[in-house]
């Protein structure tokens, strides 16, 4: 073990070897410059604008700016609509995720690709598509109007619909992956104990994917909160009714840049809170529930 019982030369040789090893390990850990320089630039590119937001923030005027009733309306509307969209996504998206993960029907993989399309679709296009479907003259919108008198475009409900359309796929892919990876053995065990498929889903499957469900819901909520393109296209930009925070920021940037920065700051804080919450979840996943 130690060099004490070796002849001194051998001990020296060992020490030298370990120094060499340490150098070798160091050089293996060193970052080659063709990777290091772009990496630093990328990090700066992502962080500097955020730092700029903090530097240029009108800290003194902040309470006054945020107390403005239009700002408060936008914030309230944003939180309400994002939460409602997340609720809808949970109620309808989780069953869809289960079907996508578990069904062996033909065409399921094509369906999976299609329902996650809004992930990559430009949100404005989503908004146009929603207008064509649920607009007053849309395929479904006309029927909805005729039968119930409800019209969705340019209403708060329309904001929720637009946000759900854009954000639900985030929940679906997260939860679908969790369903796919979950151990079917527990479900079989529950079945042999007399549980019906629905009971198995409720008492075993869903609790076991709890962390993924939460992560998916948070992602969905954050995406809904930041929704801009589909919302402004489908629901318009009416203060107090359809003007969410991102729309308010965009409008304020022209009339009152300081207010825009203040609003952006609020969204930044919310985003950081979401990220922190998710990280905590991800770190604890796999240990004691």
């Amino acid at each position, binding site marked *: 073990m130690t060099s004490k019982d070796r002849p001194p030369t051998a001990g020296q040789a060992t020490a030298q070897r370990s120094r060499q090893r340490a150098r070798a390990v160091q050089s293996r850990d060193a970052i080659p410059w063709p990777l290091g320089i772009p990496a630093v630039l990328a990090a700066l590119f992502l962080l500097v604008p955020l730092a700029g937001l903090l530097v240029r923030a009108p800290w003194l005027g902040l309470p006054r700016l945020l107390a403005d009733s239009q700002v408060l309306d936008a914030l309230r509307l944003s939180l309400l609509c994002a939460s409602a969209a997340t609720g809808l996504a949970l109620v309808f998206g989780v069953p869809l995720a289960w079907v996508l993960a578990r069904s062996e029907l033909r065409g399921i993989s094509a369906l999976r690709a299609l329902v996650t399309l809004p992930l990559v679709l430009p949100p404005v296009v989503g908004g146009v598509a929603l207008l064509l479907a649920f607009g007053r003259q849309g395929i479904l919108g006309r029927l909805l109007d005729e039968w119930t008198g409800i019209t969705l475009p340019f209403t708060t409900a329309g904001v929720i619909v637009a946000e759900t359309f854009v954000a639900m796929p985030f929940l679906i892919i997260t939860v679908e992956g969790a369903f796919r990876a979950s151990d079917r*053995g527990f479900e079989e065990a529950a079945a*042999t104990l007399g549980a019906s498929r629905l009971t198995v889903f409720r008492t075993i499957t869903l609790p076991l994917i709890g962390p993924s469900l939460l992560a998916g819901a948070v992602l969905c909520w954050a995406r809904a909160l930041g929704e801009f393109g589909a919302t402004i296209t489908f629901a318009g930009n009416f203060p107090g009714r359809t003007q969410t925070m991102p729309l308010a920021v965009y409008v304020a940037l022209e009339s009152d840049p300081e207010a825009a920065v203040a609003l952006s700051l609020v969204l930044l804080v919310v985003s950081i809170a979401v990220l922190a919450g998710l990280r905590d979840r991800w770190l604890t996943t796999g240990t004691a529930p």
Partner: protein
Amino acid sequence: MSANPGGEALVMSGTVERGSFRLEADLRAAPGEVLAVLGPNGAGKTTLLRALSGLEALTSGTIRLGDLTLDDAATDTFVPAQLRPVGLVFQSYRLFPHLDVRDNVAYAPRVQGAGRRQARATADTWLERLDLSALATRRPHQISGGQAQQVALARALAADPRFLLLDEPLSALDARTRLDVRARLRSHLEQFTGPVLIITHDPLEAMIMADRLLVIENGRVVQQGTPAQVARQPATQYVARLVGLNLYTGTLEVASHRVFLDAGGTFTVTLGDDDPAASGGTGESTRPVLVGLRPSAITIHTVRPTHASPRNVWEGKVVGLELLADRVRVQVDATPPALVDISSAAVADLALRPGTAVWLSAKATETEAYAAPAAAGGSAQRSRYRS
């Protein structure tokens, strides 16, 4: 322990096909009987278990529990797992990680309609009966493997099953806990009034736990019988290896009591008690037989033995030596090849090493020939188990 003290027999006769794999099984487990299903990996043990528990449907044939048809491919009757009165203890236990021990055991009563309080009371009764009350509030990851096995058994029993299936119940345990858990498991199973099937690849476990063995190889039942029968007259090389016996196939010449072995060589044998030739004969002059020879019944010599007694003597070469707990197993390449058990002192005395030329001898009285045991558990064989 069960709600139906009379108990019903579990009877299966059918096949399961999954891709290119085919399992064909014909078995009957009587009420209160512990039947061990023994076989190498990939033999179809788990498929059998899944078919019996309702996690998989038969391709053809039937499964019945008493008068109740659980699966009948011909009439398209299939009772799924959730509706079968089955208690299944999985190899990896599959305790629900998000529930504590009590709620794991309360799961079956709860999903079968009991209120939360009542289900927990039922669970507490079972935990007490299996001496697990101290663990009630622990999560599955906070208990040992042996405890998890007992909790899994309690969870299965709390469903009030009419038959029990245990998949490799002890294989996940280390050697020390295994002894203890095996003893406890055995005593719990003795109180169960329905049929019990234990899936295992461990012959010792099968012999100790079970009243009867059923050996599966390559998707077919190759032998059924009591542990003693299987140990004495193995039907296949796999079983012979499990019980540590040399097994040879050959043709018996009835008049001379000589067996011409398929692997070469000739043995003079004793016929088994139940051999037709021993009780008057069947009239055939030759017929195929199996010859079983215990490794400890073979003597090893370095010079040709000169005894005149009726011995089987043959020549060979040592190819391997393996140290067992209290003896050495010598592998001899000869016609026929053999495993021989001798003491380590004898290995030293004879200076055996791989390559040593040796002579083997075995008394005719130790060399028993028997007809290949019936595999599919025909009615004649079954009545013998009962008598």
